Structures are given as structure tokens and as C-alpha cells.
């Protein structure tokens, strides 16, 4: 008798997908080695990031979401290593990533001097976001927008919206005040909103 070959949907089985996990590990190693210029430090950072991310693995039904999360942790580990080892010269991408106060002026350009929306920046209604959710292309845009967030923004955002940690827990983890976290989350959400508006909604998708 032939066993029915039930292939579990992507949403449940990816942790057992050795090819996926090993490719992900390779990508992480490549990234970490590039940043740290040291194979064994890179190996350690990847290992720690993996262990850290797997603690919440049951949260992630979608493998690309897990990937985004594990890379956010990895970036943070890399910054830690760089901070603790000043001899290393970090590449500019990680250094910029760690900058908590980027482009205030650019940021504020969506509002006028009195703090009101510029006409061109004013949010317009999103039609049918639920339809987008069943569209694979939408999720590619979503992932790209998340990856476009500066490191601290995306990590705070993912802790809050992916893992569902409370703001107190995130403040502890990031060693930051509630006010700073509010700013991080506000900017993360606003940038994500704007990115989806520009790259999905306005393109009439």
C-alpha cells in the first residue's frame, strides 16, 4: 500500500528543511565574515544569532520572516563584537546601521514647519490590504521594506510586532528608555508605511 505523500505547507515544515537551514547558515556566515573579517568570530556570531532566533522559532510560520529575524539578530551580534573589539574596522554598512539618530532633517521632511503633512506626503487610504496578503509579490515588497529599515529600528519593530514582546521587555533587551523606544517604533512604522505606500500601493498593485 502506498503511503499518501502529504507535503506539509511551507508554513509548518521549514525548520526541518535542512537545505533551507544550511543555505541560511551559509548566507549568514558570508555576511558575518564580510563584516568582521574574521572567520572564527563570524562563526561564533552566526551560532549565537541562530540560537537566539530559534528560541522564538514557533512564532515564525513563514520562512522568509524567520530569515529577516535571524539576520536582525546577527547584525546586532556583529555590532557587539565590533564594540568589544576595537581593533576591527567595521564596514560602513554596519556602522551606519547602528546609528540611532540618522537623518533627522530628511525624516522631518514629510511634515511642514508647523508639523502638518506636506500635501504630497499625506497618507491616502489603502484599499484591500487583505487581498495583498494572498499575493506573493506583496510579501517580497514587504520583506524588502523591512530589510531597508536601519538596524535598531527593525530589531525594535520585530521584537514588538513579530515576537509580541511588551515595550518594557524590549527596553530591557535594547537597554533603552521608553521614550527612545517610542521614537524607534514610530520611525520604523512610519518608514515601513511609506515604503509600502511607494512600492506597492502607489504602483496600483
Amino acid at each position: 500500500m502506498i503511503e499518501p505523500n502529504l507535503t506539509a505547507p511551507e508554513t509548518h515544515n521549514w525548520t526541518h528543511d535542512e537545505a533551507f537551514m544550511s543555505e541560511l547558515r551559509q548566507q549568514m556566515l558570508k555576511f558575518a565574515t564580510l563584516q568582521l573579517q574574521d572567520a572564527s568570530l563570524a562563526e561564533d556570531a552566526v551560532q549565537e544569532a541562530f540560537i537566539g532566533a530559534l528560541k522564538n522559532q514557533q512564532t515564525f510560520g513563514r520562512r522568509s520572516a524567520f530569515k529577516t529575524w535571524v539576520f536582525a539578530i546577527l547584525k546586532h551580534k556583529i555590532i557587539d563584537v565590533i564594540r568589544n573589539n576595537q581593533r576591527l574596522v567595521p564596514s560602513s554598512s554596519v556602522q551606519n546601521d547602528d546609528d540611532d539618530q540618522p537623518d533627522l532633517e530628511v525624516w522631518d521632511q514629510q511634515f511642514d514647519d508647523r508639523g502638518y503633512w506636506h500635501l504630497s506626503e499625506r497618507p491616502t487610504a489603502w484599499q484591500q490590504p487583505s487581498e495583498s496578503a494572498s499575493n506573493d509579490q506583496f510579501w517580497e515588497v514587504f520583506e524588502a521594506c523591512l530589510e531597508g529599515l536601519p538596524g535598531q529600528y527593525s530589531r525594535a519593530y520585530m521584537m514588538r510586532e513579530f515576537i509580541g514582546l511588551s515595550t518594557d521587555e524590549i527596553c530591557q533587551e535594547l537597554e533603552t528608555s521608553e521614550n527612545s523606544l517610542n521614537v524607534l517604533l514610530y520611525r520604523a512604522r512610519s518608514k515601513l508605511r511609506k515604503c509600502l505606500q511607494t512600492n506597492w500601493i502607489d504602483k496600483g498593485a
Partner: protein
Amino acid sequence: MMNCKSTTQLLSQAQDRKLTFIETSGVKLHTSMCKGCRNYGKQMKQLSDLSSQFVKPKPETKSDTLS
């Protein structure tokens, strides 16, 4: 009256904590007159929903594919 900048800041925080009565009143007054901020507020919730779905997509049910 609150401007769009402070209103959107509170609309973001509303995803994380219960706003005070005064804050809620300020946001309500502003959004009753400002469509941009009204949309921003809706999109904060939509972003949160989309993030949950990104992390945990709803599995397709058989009835969807067969009917």
C-alpha cells in the same frame, strides 16, 4: 490643537499602550478633521496585521482551493 506630527506619534504608541484620556481626546479631535492622520491611524493597525501574517501566514484551507 495637536499637529500631524504629534498625532502620528501617539497613533504609533496606541499600538503599544493604552493612551490616556487626554491623549485619546486630542487624537480623536485631530483625526476627525485630518484625513491624512486618519489614514495613518488605520495603516498602523494594518501594518500590525500584515506583520502577524508575514510571520504566520494563514494556511490555505481546502475549501479555498477546491471550490
